[in-house]
Protein backbone atom coordinates (compact mmCIF):
# COMPACT_ATOMS: atom_id res chain seq x y z
CA UNK A 1 0.00 0.00 0.00
CA UNK A 2 1.24 3.50 -0.81
CA UNK A 3 1.02 6.35 1.69
CA UNK A 4 1.48 8.89 -1.06
CA UNK A 5 0.76 8.89 -4.78
CA UNK A 6 1.93 11.76 -6.96
CA UNK A 7 0.56 12.15 -10.50
CA UNK A 8 2.12 14.47 -13.09
CA UNK A 9 2.81 17.42 -10.83
CA UNK A 10 4.17 20.52 -12.56
CA UNK A 11 5.02 23.91 -11.15
CA UNK A 12 6.58 27.00 -12.71
CA UNK A 13 7.96 30.15 -11.13
CA UNK A 14 7.60 32.58 -14.02
CA UNK A 15 9.70 31.20 -16.87
CA UNK A 16 11.49 28.69 -14.61
CA UNK A 17 10.00 25.20 -14.58
CA UNK A 18 10.57 23.96 -11.03
CA UNK A 19 8.80 20.60 -11.52
CA UNK A 20 7.97 18.86 -14.80
CA UNK A 21 5.31 16.14 -14.74
CA UNK A 22 6.68 14.44 -11.66
CA UNK A 23 4.99 11.15 -10.75
CA UNK A 24 5.96 8.53 -8.17
CA UNK A 25 4.56 6.68 -5.20
CA UNK A 26 5.87 6.27 -1.67
CA UNK A 27 5.27 2.75 -0.29
CA UNK A 28 4.29 2.34 3.36
CA UNK A 29 7.00 1.68 5.98
CA UNK A 30 9.86 2.96 3.85
CA UNK A 31 12.47 5.65 4.40
CA UNK A 32 12.02 7.51 1.15
CA UNK A 33 14.70 9.97 0.13
CA UNK A 34 13.93 12.78 -2.29
CA UNK A 35 17.34 13.58 -3.71
CA UNK A 36 18.62 16.24 -5.99
CA UNK A 37 21.17 18.99 -6.27
CA UNK A 38 20.29 22.49 -5.02
CA UNK A 39 17.49 23.96 -7.13
CA UNK A 40 16.25 20.58 -8.33
CA UNK A 41 12.71 21.14 -7.01
CA UNK A 42 12.80 19.06 -3.81
CA UNK A 43 11.44 21.73 -1.48
CA UNK A 44 8.90 22.88 -4.08
CA UNK A 45 7.60 19.32 -4.30
CA UNK A 46 7.33 18.96 -0.51
CA UNK A 47 5.68 22.40 -0.30
CA UNK A 48 3.01 21.25 -2.77
CA UNK A 49 2.45 18.02 -0.83
CA UNK A 50 1.85 20.11 2.32
CA UNK A 51 -0.44 22.61 0.53
CA UNK A 52 1.70 25.68 1.15
CA UNK A 53 2.46 25.85 -2.58
CA UNK A 54 -0.02 25.36 -5.41
CA UNK A 55 0.91 23.15 -8.34
CA UNK A 56 0.08 24.32 -11.87
CA UNK A 57 -0.96 20.82 -12.89
CA UNK A 58 -1.20 17.30 -11.52
CA UNK A 59 -2.58 15.77 -8.36
CA UNK A 60 -1.43 13.96 -5.25
CA UNK A 61 -3.16 11.85 -2.66
CA UNK A 62 -2.19 10.89 0.86
CA UNK A 63 -3.44 7.43 1.80
CA UNK A 64 -5.19 7.25 -1.58
CA UNK A 65 -8.02 9.52 -0.53
CA UNK A 66 -8.55 13.22 -1.13
CA UNK A 67 -8.66 14.23 2.51
CA UNK A 68 -8.07 17.69 3.90
CA UNK A 69 -7.26 16.33 7.33
CA UNK A 70 -4.39 14.14 6.08
CA UNK A 71 -1.77 16.68 7.10
CA UNK A 72 -2.73 16.24 10.75
CA UNK A 73 -1.42 12.67 10.52
CA UNK A 74 1.87 13.87 9.03
CA UNK A 75 4.73 15.26 11.06
CA UNK A 76 6.48 17.75 8.82
CA UNK A 77 9.52 19.95 8.83
CA UNK A 78 9.81 22.18 5.76
CA UNK A 79 12.81 24.45 5.21
CA UNK A 80 13.41 26.63 8.28
CA UNK A 81 11.59 26.09 11.58
CA UNK A 82 8.68 28.54 11.84
CA UNK A 83 7.40 29.30 15.32
CA UNK A 84 5.96 32.24 17.28
CA UNK A 85 9.14 33.99 18.41
CA UNK A 86 7.62 35.46 21.59
CA UNK A 87 6.33 32.08 22.83
CA UNK A 88 8.17 29.29 24.65
CA UNK A 89 8.70 25.80 23.23
CA UNK A 90 5.77 24.53 25.31
CA UNK A 91 3.37 27.27 24.20
CA UNK A 92 4.38 26.78 20.57
CA UNK A 93 3.76 23.05 20.83
CA UNK A 94 0.35 23.71 22.44
CA UNK A 95 -0.60 25.55 19.25
CA UNK A 96 0.59 22.59 17.16
CA UNK A 97 -1.42 20.23 19.40
CA UNK A 98 -4.49 22.44 18.92
CA UNK A 99 -4.12 22.37 15.14
CA UNK A 100 -3.43 18.64 15.01
CA UNK A 101 -6.26 17.99 17.48
CA UNK A 102 -3.97 15.80 19.56
CA UNK A 103 -3.31 15.69 23.28
CA UNK A 104 -0.82 18.09 24.90
CA UNK A 105 0.39 15.24 27.12
CA UNK A 106 3.27 14.30 24.79
CA UNK A 107 4.84 17.76 24.80
CA UNK A 108 7.38 16.95 27.53
CA UNK A 109 8.12 13.58 25.94
CA UNK A 110 9.01 15.02 22.52
CA UNK A 111 11.02 17.83 24.11
CA UNK A 112 12.94 15.21 26.07
CA UNK A 113 13.54 13.18 22.88
CA UNK A 114 15.01 16.23 21.17
CA UNK A 115 17.01 17.42 24.17
CA UNK A 116 15.04 20.61 24.80
CA UNK A 117 13.28 19.77 28.07
CA UNK A 118 15.57 21.98 30.18
CA UNK A 119 14.80 24.99 27.94
CA UNK A 120 11.10 24.30 27.48
CA UNK A 121 9.94 27.55 29.06
CA UNK A 122 12.44 29.73 27.20
CA UNK A 123 11.21 31.87 24.33
CA UNK A 124 11.81 30.58 20.80
CA UNK A 125 13.69 33.78 19.90
CA UNK A 126 16.43 32.88 22.42
CA UNK A 127 17.15 29.50 20.77
CA UNK A 128 20.21 28.74 18.65
CA UNK A 129 19.73 27.49 15.07
CA UNK A 130 20.30 23.90 16.19
CA UNK A 131 17.74 24.24 19.01
CA UNK A 132 15.21 25.72 16.60
CA UNK A 133 15.72 22.72 14.32
CA UNK A 134 15.29 20.37 17.29
CA UNK A 135 12.03 22.10 18.25
CA UNK A 136 10.81 21.67 14.68
CA UNK A 137 11.56 17.96 14.91
CA UNK A 138 9.81 17.79 18.31
CA UNK A 139 6.80 19.48 16.73
CA UNK A 140 6.80 16.99 13.85
CA UNK A 141 6.79 14.09 16.32
CA UNK A 142 4.10 15.50 18.62
CA UNK A 143 1.04 13.78 17.18
CA UNK A 144 2.62 10.32 16.81
CA UNK A 145 2.59 10.73 13.03
CA UNK A 146 2.13 7.86 10.60
CA UNK A 147 4.30 9.72 8.12
CA UNK A 148 7.22 11.99 8.84
CA UNK A 149 8.12 14.44 6.08
CA UNK A 150 11.49 16.08 6.61
CA UNK A 151 13.21 18.66 4.45
CA UNK A 152 16.95 18.71 5.16
CA UNK A 153 16.39 17.58 8.78
CA UNK A 154 20.03 17.87 9.80
CA UNK A 155 20.39 21.53 8.77
CA UNK A 156 22.09 23.53 11.49
CA UNK A 157 22.87 20.52 13.68
CA UNK A 158 26.34 19.60 14.95
CA UNK A 159 27.79 16.13 14.19
CA UNK A 160 26.37 14.68 17.43
CA UNK A 161 22.96 16.15 16.59
CA UNK A 162 23.12 14.71 13.07
CA UNK A 163 23.89 11.25 14.49
CA UNK A 164 20.98 11.61 16.96
CA UNK A 165 18.56 12.47 14.17
CA UNK A 166 19.79 9.53 12.12
CA UNK A 167 19.22 7.20 15.06
CA UNK A 168 15.80 8.75 15.65
CA UNK A 169 14.82 8.21 12.01
CA UNK A 170 15.94 4.58 12.16
CA UNK A 171 14.05 4.02 15.43
CA UNK A 172 10.86 5.56 14.06
CA UNK A 173 11.20 3.52 10.87
CA UNK A 174 11.53 0.34 12.93
CA UNK A 175 8.29 1.32 14.70
CA UNK A 176 6.49 1.45 11.35
CA UNK A 177 6.60 5.18 10.62
CA UNK A 178 7.04 6.03 6.94
CA UNK A 179 9.67 8.70 6.47
CA UNK A 180 9.96 10.97 3.47
CA UNK A 181 13.16 12.95 3.53
CA UNK A 182 14.55 15.52 1.15
CA UNK A 183 18.27 15.90 1.30
CA UNK A 184 21.34 16.73 -0.71
CA UNK A 185 23.56 14.97 1.85
CA UNK A 186 24.07 11.62 0.15
CA UNK A 187 25.97 10.25 3.07
CA UNK A 188 22.83 10.71 5.19
CA UNK A 189 20.64 9.12 2.56
CA UNK A 190 22.96 6.15 2.13
CA UNK A 191 22.79 5.47 5.85
CA UNK A 192 19.02 5.61 6.29
CA UNK A 193 17.02 5.48 3.04
CA UNK A 194 15.43 2.36 1.60
CA UNK A 195 13.90 4.10 -1.42
CA UNK A 196 14.72 7.23 -3.40
CA UNK A 197 13.38 9.59 -6.01
CA UNK A 198 15.99 11.63 -7.88
CA UNK A 199 15.18 15.08 -9.17
CA UNK A 200 17.26 17.27 -11.42
CA UNK A 201 16.07 20.70 -12.54
CA UNK A 202 12.47 19.62 -12.04
CA UNK A 203 12.76 16.31 -13.90
CA UNK A 204 12.33 12.99 -12.16
CA UNK A 205 15.32 10.88 -13.16
CA UNK A 206 14.11 7.78 -11.37
CA UNK A 207 12.40 6.42 -8.29
CA UNK A 208 12.27 3.13 -6.42
CA UNK A 209 14.46 1.04 -4.13
CA UNK A 210 17.91 2.59 -3.59
CA UNK A 211 19.77 -0.32 -5.23
CA UNK A 212 17.56 -0.20 -8.29
CA UNK A 213 17.74 3.54 -8.84
CA UNK A 214 21.30 4.22 -7.88
CA UNK A 215 22.86 1.15 -9.39
CA UNK A 216 26.17 0.89 -7.61
CA UNK A 217 28.90 -0.66 -9.72
CA UNK A 218 31.43 -2.91 -8.03
CA UNK A 219 35.02 -1.66 -8.00
CA UNK A 220 38.18 -3.71 -7.62
CA UNK A 221 41.43 -1.88 -7.03
CA UNK A 222 44.61 -3.59 -8.22
CA UNK A 223 48.25 -2.59 -8.48
CA UNK A 224 51.50 -4.07 -9.75
CA UNK A 225 55.05 -2.88 -10.35
CA UNK A 226 54.34 -2.46 -14.09
CA UNK A 227 51.04 -0.61 -14.18
CA UNK A 228 51.05 -0.31 -18.00
CA UNK A 229 51.34 -4.05 -18.43
CA UNK A 230 48.68 -4.58 -15.75
CA UNK A 231 46.33 -2.28 -17.64
CA UNK A 232 46.85 -4.24 -20.89
CA UNK A 233 46.22 -7.55 -19.14
CA UNK A 234 43.10 -6.42 -17.32
CA UNK A 235 41.41 -5.22 -20.51
CA UNK A 236 40.93 -8.85 -21.52
CA UNK A 237 39.57 -10.01 -18.13
CA UNK A 238 35.88 -11.05 -18.47
CA UNK A 239 33.27 -8.65 -17.06
CA UNK A 240 35.42 -5.53 -16.85
CA UNK A 241 33.27 -2.52 -17.78
CA UNK A 242 35.80 0.20 -17.34
CA UNK A 243 39.43 0.74 -16.29
CA UNK A 244 40.46 3.84 -14.44
CA UNK A 245 43.93 4.76 -13.12
CA UNK A 246 43.87 5.83 -9.47
CA UNK A 247 47.24 7.14 -8.21
CA UNK A 248 49.59 4.14 -8.41
CA UNK A 249 46.72 1.65 -8.72
CA UNK A 250 44.10 0.70 -11.27
CA UNK A 251 40.35 0.65 -10.68
CA UNK A 252 38.30 -2.00 -12.44
CA UNK A 253 34.53 -1.57 -12.68
CA UNK A 254 32.15 -4.56 -12.75
CA UNK A 255 28.39 -4.99 -12.59
CA UNK A 256 28.81 -7.88 -10.12
CA UNK A 257 31.71 -8.91 -7.95
CA UNK A 258 34.24 -11.02 -9.94
CA UNK A 259 35.88 -14.14 -8.49
CA UNK A 260 38.90 -12.56 -6.82
CA UNK A 261 40.97 -15.76 -6.86
CA UNK A 262 40.33 -16.16 -10.60
CA UNK A 263 41.35 -12.55 -11.18
CA UNK A 264 44.58 -13.07 -9.23
CA UNK A 265 45.32 -16.28 -11.11
CA UNK A 266 44.55 -14.62 -14.48
CA UNK A 267 47.12 -11.88 -13.78
CA UNK A 268 49.74 -14.38 -12.60
CA UNK A 269 49.25 -16.51 -15.72
CA UNK A 270 49.79 -13.38 -17.83
CA UNK A 271 53.09 -12.72 -16.01
CA UNK A 272 51.84 -9.96 -13.72
CA UNK A 273 52.23 -10.30 -9.96
CA UNK A 274 49.68 -8.26 -8.06
CA UNK A 275 50.84 -6.12 -5.18
CA UNK A 276 47.31 -5.08 -4.21
CA UNK A 277 43.87 -6.61 -4.76
CA UNK A 278 41.00 -4.90 -2.96
CA UNK A 279 37.21 -4.81 -3.26
CA UNK A 280 35.55 -1.37 -3.10
CA UNK A 281 31.89 -0.41 -3.41
CA UNK A 282 31.22 2.58 -5.61
CA UNK A 283 30.05 5.41 -3.38
CA UNK A 284 26.46 6.56 -3.61
CA UNK A 285 27.84 9.95 -4.40
CA UNK A 286 29.54 8.80 -7.58
CA UNK A 287 26.42 6.83 -8.61
CA UNK A 288 24.38 9.93 -8.00
CA UNK A 289 26.81 12.14 -9.91
CA UNK A 290 26.79 9.65 -12.76
CA UNK A 291 22.98 9.70 -12.87
CA UNK A 292 22.53 13.44 -12.55
CA UNK A 293 25.31 14.33 -14.98
CA UNK A 294 23.91 12.27 -17.85
Amino acid sequence: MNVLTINNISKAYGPVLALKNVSFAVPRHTVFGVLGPNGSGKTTLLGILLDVLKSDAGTFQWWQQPDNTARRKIGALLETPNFYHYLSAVDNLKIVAGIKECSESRIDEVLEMTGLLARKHHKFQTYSLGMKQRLAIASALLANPEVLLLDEPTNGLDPAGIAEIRTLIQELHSKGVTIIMASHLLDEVEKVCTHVAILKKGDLLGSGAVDEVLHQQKVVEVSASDITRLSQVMQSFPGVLKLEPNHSALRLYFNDWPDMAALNRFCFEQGVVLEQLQQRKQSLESSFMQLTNN
Partner: protein
Amino acid sequence: MKALLAIEWLKLKRYRTFWWLLAFYGGLLILVTLMVFKGIFTVGANGINILSSLFNFPNVWKNVGFWASMIVDFLAFLMIILVSNEYQFRTNRQNVIDGQTRLQFLHAKYGLVLVLSIGATLFFMLNCIVVGGIASSGLQNMTSGINNVLYFFLHAFNLISFGLLLGLLLKRSGIALSVFLGYQLIVENMLKAFIDSRVYRGIGTYLPLQSTDDMFPIPVMEMVRSLTNAPEAPSLIWSAIAGVFWCCLYYVIARRRILTTDL
Protein backbone atom coordinates in the same frame (compact mmCIF):
# COMPACT_ATOMS: atom_id res chain seq x y z
CA MET B 1 -14.92 28.09 15.13
CA LYS B 2 -14.52 27.62 18.88
CA ALA B 3 -11.45 25.39 18.33
CA LEU B 4 -9.98 27.89 15.86
CA LEU B 5 -10.45 30.74 18.33
CA ALA B 6 -8.85 28.65 21.11
CA ILE B 7 -5.73 28.35 18.91
CA GLU B 8 -5.78 32.12 18.21
CA TRP B 9 -6.01 32.76 21.95
CA LEU B 10 -2.87 30.67 22.52
CA LYS B 11 -1.09 32.90 20.00
CA LEU B 12 -2.38 36.13 21.55
CA LYS B 13 -2.39 35.76 25.28
CA ARG B 14 1.36 36.26 25.64
CA TYR B 15 1.72 38.78 22.81
CA ARG B 16 2.35 42.19 24.35
CA THR B 17 1.38 44.26 21.30
CA PHE B 18 -2.08 42.70 21.51
CA TRP B 19 -2.61 43.92 25.07
CA TRP B 20 -1.06 47.33 24.35
CA LEU B 21 -3.37 48.02 21.41
CA LEU B 22 -6.44 46.83 23.33
CA ALA B 23 -5.37 49.18 26.13
CA PHE B 24 -4.97 52.05 23.64
CA TYR B 25 -8.51 51.54 22.41
CA GLY B 26 -10.06 51.23 25.87
CA GLY B 27 -7.91 53.90 27.54
CA LEU B 28 -8.24 56.49 24.80
CA LEU B 29 -11.99 56.00 24.52
CA ILE B 30 -12.45 56.60 28.26
CA LEU B 31 -10.05 59.55 28.22
CA VAL B 32 -11.59 61.33 25.23
CA THR B 33 -15.16 60.71 26.40
CA LEU B 34 -14.38 62.14 29.82
CA MET B 35 -12.48 65.14 28.44
CA VAL B 36 -15.26 66.11 26.03
CA PHE B 37 -17.96 65.36 28.58
CA LYS B 38 -16.28 67.47 31.24
CA GLY B 39 -15.51 70.26 28.76
CA ILE B 40 -11.74 69.86 29.21
CA PHE B 41 -11.27 69.19 25.51
CA THR B 42 -12.87 71.94 23.42
CA VAL B 43 -12.77 73.25 19.86
CA GLY B 44 -13.32 76.97 19.42
CA ALA B 45 -12.19 80.29 20.96
CA ASN B 46 -13.39 82.99 23.36
CA GLY B 47 -15.13 80.53 25.61
CA ILE B 48 -17.19 79.06 22.78
CA ASN B 49 -16.98 75.29 22.30
CA ILE B 50 -18.45 74.17 19.00
CA LEU B 51 -18.34 70.51 19.99
CA SER B 52 -21.71 69.17 20.99
CA SER B 53 -22.03 68.98 24.74
CA LEU B 54 -25.19 66.91 24.53
CA PHE B 55 -24.45 63.63 26.28
CA ASN B 56 -27.98 62.65 27.28
CA PHE B 57 -29.78 59.79 25.55
CA PRO B 58 -30.02 59.48 22.54
CA ASN B 59 -27.32 62.12 21.72
CA VAL B 60 -24.65 60.23 23.65
CA TRP B 61 -24.58 57.38 21.07
CA LYS B 62 -23.61 59.69 18.20
CA ASN B 63 -21.43 61.91 20.37
CA VAL B 64 -19.27 59.15 21.86
CA GLY B 65 -19.67 57.16 18.62
CA PHE B 66 -17.80 59.83 16.65
CA TRP B 67 -14.72 59.54 18.90
CA ALA B 68 -14.94 55.77 19.22
CA SER B 69 -15.22 55.41 15.42
CA MET B 70 -11.77 57.00 15.14
CA ILE B 71 -10.16 55.23 18.08
CA VAL B 72 -11.26 51.82 16.80
CA ASP B 73 -8.50 52.31 14.20
CA PHE B 74 -6.14 50.84 16.82
CA LEU B 75 -7.93 47.51 16.55
CA ALA B 76 -7.55 47.61 12.77
CA PHE B 77 -3.82 48.28 13.32
CA LEU B 78 -3.76 45.27 15.64
CA MET B 79 -5.33 43.09 12.96
CA ILE B 80 -2.81 44.29 10.36
CA ILE B 81 0.07 43.47 12.71
CA LEU B 82 -1.31 40.05 13.64
CA VAL B 83 -1.82 38.95 10.05
CA SER B 84 1.40 40.40 8.68
CA ASN B 85 3.35 38.80 11.56
CA GLU B 86 2.04 35.42 10.46
CA TYR B 87 3.45 36.07 6.98
CA GLN B 88 6.69 37.63 8.19
CA PHE B 89 7.53 34.76 10.56
CA ARG B 90 5.99 32.24 8.12
CA THR B 91 3.83 30.80 10.88
CA ASN B 92 0.87 30.86 8.45
CA ARG B 93 2.76 28.25 6.42
CA GLN B 94 3.50 26.28 9.56
CA ASN B 95 -0.18 26.31 10.60
CA VAL B 96 -1.10 24.83 7.21
CA ILE B 97 1.80 22.35 7.30
CA ASP B 98 0.59 21.23 10.74
CA GLY B 99 -2.87 20.50 9.39
CA GLN B 100 -4.98 23.64 9.24
CA THR B 101 -6.69 24.17 5.91
CA ARG B 102 -6.08 27.51 4.23
CA LEU B 103 -9.73 28.42 4.80
CA GLN B 104 -9.48 27.52 8.48
CA PHE B 105 -6.54 29.91 8.76
CA LEU B 106 -8.63 32.69 7.18
CA HIS B 107 -11.73 31.88 9.21
CA ALA B 108 -9.71 31.89 12.44
CA LYS B 109 -8.68 35.46 11.63
CA TYR B 110 -12.27 36.36 10.76
CA GLY B 111 -13.33 34.89 14.10
CA LEU B 112 -10.85 37.25 15.70
CA VAL B 113 -12.27 40.18 13.71
CA LEU B 114 -15.71 39.25 15.02
CA VAL B 115 -14.55 38.96 18.64
CA LEU B 116 -12.66 42.26 18.48
CA SER B 117 -15.64 44.02 16.88
CA ILE B 118 -18.03 42.66 19.49
CA GLY B 119 -15.60 43.58 22.29
CA ALA B 120 -15.08 47.10 20.91
CA THR B 121 -18.85 47.55 20.56
CA LEU B 122 -19.60 46.35 24.09
CA PHE B 123 -16.97 48.70 25.50
CA PHE B 124 -18.39 51.58 23.44
CA MET B 125 -21.86 50.69 24.72
CA LEU B 126 -20.70 50.62 28.33
CA ASN B 127 -19.11 54.06 27.93
CA CYS B 128 -22.30 55.48 26.45
CA ILE B 129 -24.47 53.97 29.18
CA VAL B 130 -22.29 55.38 31.97
CA VAL B 131 -21.90 58.88 30.48
CA GLY B 132 -25.47 58.95 29.12
CA GLY B 133 -26.78 57.77 32.49
CA ILE B 134 -24.97 60.59 34.29
CA ALA B 135 -26.04 63.23 31.73
CA SER B 136 -29.64 62.00 31.64
CA SER B 137 -29.78 61.44 35.39
CA GLY B 138 -30.91 57.89 34.86
CA LEU B 139 -31.26 55.12 32.29
CA GLN B 140 -34.96 55.56 31.48
CA ASN B 141 -34.31 56.68 27.86
CA MET B 142 -31.37 54.38 27.33
CA THR B 143 -32.97 52.47 24.47
CA SER B 144 -33.52 55.63 22.50
CA GLY B 145 -30.99 55.55 19.63
CA ILE B 146 -29.62 52.18 20.75
CA ASN B 147 -29.59 51.04 17.09
CA ASN B 148 -26.35 53.05 16.91
CA VAL B 149 -24.75 50.17 18.80
CA LEU B 150 -25.41 47.94 15.80
CA TYR B 151 -24.07 50.60 13.44
CA PHE B 152 -20.96 50.94 15.56
CA PHE B 153 -20.44 47.17 15.40
CA LEU B 154 -20.69 47.33 11.62
CA HIS B 155 -18.16 50.17 11.51
CA ALA B 156 -15.72 48.29 13.76
CA PHE B 157 -16.12 45.10 11.69
CA ASN B 158 -15.64 47.07 8.47
CA LEU B 159 -12.43 48.72 9.68
CA ILE B 160 -10.89 45.63 11.30
CA SER B 161 -11.69 43.30 8.39
CA PHE B 162 -10.26 45.93 5.99
CA GLY B 163 -7.09 45.75 8.12
CA LEU B 164 -7.15 41.96 7.83
CA LEU B 165 -7.42 42.19 4.04
CA LEU B 166 -4.52 44.64 3.78
CA GLY B 167 -2.34 42.48 6.06
CA LEU B 168 -3.15 39.47 3.89
CA LEU B 169 -2.47 41.24 0.60
CA LEU B 170 0.61 43.25 1.57
CA LYS B 171 2.21 40.87 4.13
CA ARG B 172 4.40 43.58 5.67
CA SER B 173 3.04 45.47 8.66
CA GLY B 174 4.82 48.76 7.86
CA ILE B 175 3.52 48.84 4.30
CA ALA B 176 0.02 47.69 5.27
CA LEU B 177 -0.27 50.28 8.07
CA SER B 178 0.90 53.06 5.74
CA VAL B 179 -1.55 52.01 3.03
CA PHE B 180 -4.37 51.79 5.59
CA LEU B 181 -3.76 55.29 6.96
CA GLY B 182 -2.97 56.77 3.55
CA TYR B 183 -6.18 55.38 2.11
CA GLN B 184 -8.37 56.22 5.10
CA LEU B 185 -7.12 59.75 5.71
CA ILE B 186 -6.21 60.98 2.23
CA VAL B 187 -7.16 58.80 -0.74
CA GLU B 188 -10.73 58.05 0.27
CA ASN B 189 -11.46 61.67 1.20
CA MET B 190 -10.12 62.81 -2.17
CA LEU B 191 -12.12 60.11 -3.94
CA LYS B 192 -15.22 61.12 -2.02
CA ALA B 193 -14.78 64.78 -2.97
CA PHE B 194 -14.13 63.85 -6.59
CA ILE B 195 -17.15 61.55 -6.85
CA ASP B 196 -19.44 64.03 -5.10
CA SER B 197 -18.34 66.95 -7.26
CA ARG B 198 -17.75 65.27 -10.61
CA VAL B 199 -19.85 62.12 -10.68
CA TYR B 200 -22.95 62.26 -8.50
CA ARG B 201 -23.39 64.21 -5.30
CA GLY B 202 -23.98 62.01 -2.27
CA ILE B 203 -22.47 58.81 -3.72
CA GLY B 204 -19.01 59.39 -2.25
CA THR B 205 -20.30 58.58 1.21
CA TYR B 206 -20.73 54.94 0.23
CA LEU B 207 -17.01 54.31 -0.34
CA PRO B 208 -15.57 51.37 1.68
CA LEU B 209 -14.53 53.07 4.93
CA GLN B 210 -16.69 56.20 4.54
CA SER B 211 -19.86 54.12 4.33
CA THR B 212 -19.77 53.23 8.01
CA ASP B 213 -17.62 56.15 9.21
CA ASP B 214 -20.22 58.67 8.00
CA MET B 215 -22.77 57.04 10.31
CA PHE B 216 -20.98 58.91 13.09
CA PRO B 217 -20.38 62.46 11.77
CA ILE B 218 -18.56 65.12 13.80
CA PRO B 219 -20.85 66.10 16.73
CA VAL B 220 -20.93 69.89 16.43
CA MET B 221 -23.49 72.17 18.01
CA GLU B 222 -26.75 72.36 16.05
CA MET B 223 -26.25 76.10 15.54
CA VAL B 224 -22.80 75.57 14.07
CA ARG B 225 -24.15 72.82 11.85
CA SER B 226 -26.71 75.17 10.30
CA LEU B 227 -24.12 77.94 9.85
CA THR B 228 -21.28 75.89 8.43
CA ASN B 229 -23.27 73.37 6.43
CA ALA B 230 -21.57 70.58 8.42
CA PRO B 231 -22.40 67.16 6.96
CA GLU B 232 -25.56 65.46 8.03
CA ALA B 233 -25.41 61.72 8.46
CA PRO B 234 -26.47 60.05 5.20
CA SER B 235 -29.25 57.49 5.10
CA LEU B 236 -28.21 55.03 7.80
CA ILE B 237 -29.87 52.08 6.13
CA TRP B 238 -28.09 52.68 2.81
CA SER B 239 -24.81 53.24 4.63
CA ALA B 240 -25.30 49.98 6.48
CA ILE B 241 -26.09 48.13 3.25
CA ALA B 242 -22.96 49.61 1.65
CA GLY B 243 -20.91 48.63 4.73
CA VAL B 244 -22.14 45.02 4.59
CA PHE B 245 -21.44 44.93 0.84
CA TRP B 246 -17.84 46.09 1.33
CA CYS B 247 -17.26 43.59 4.17
CA CYS B 248 -18.50 40.78 1.91
CA LEU B 249 -16.23 41.99 -0.88
CA TYR B 250 -13.18 41.99 1.44
CA TYR B 251 -14.02 38.40 2.38
CA VAL B 252 -14.37 37.31 -1.25
CA ILE B 253 -11.00 38.89 -2.14
CA ALA B 254 -9.28 37.46 0.95
CA ARG B 255 -10.73 34.00 0.32
CA ARG B 256 -9.68 33.99 -3.32
CA ARG B 257 -6.22 35.22 -2.39
CA ILE B 258 -5.62 32.61 0.30
CA LEU B 259 -6.96 29.72 -1.76
CA THR B 260 -5.04 30.40 -4.93
CA THR B 261 -1.60 31.76 -4.04
CA ASP B 262 1.56 30.23 -2.60
CA LEU B 263 1.91 30.86 1.12
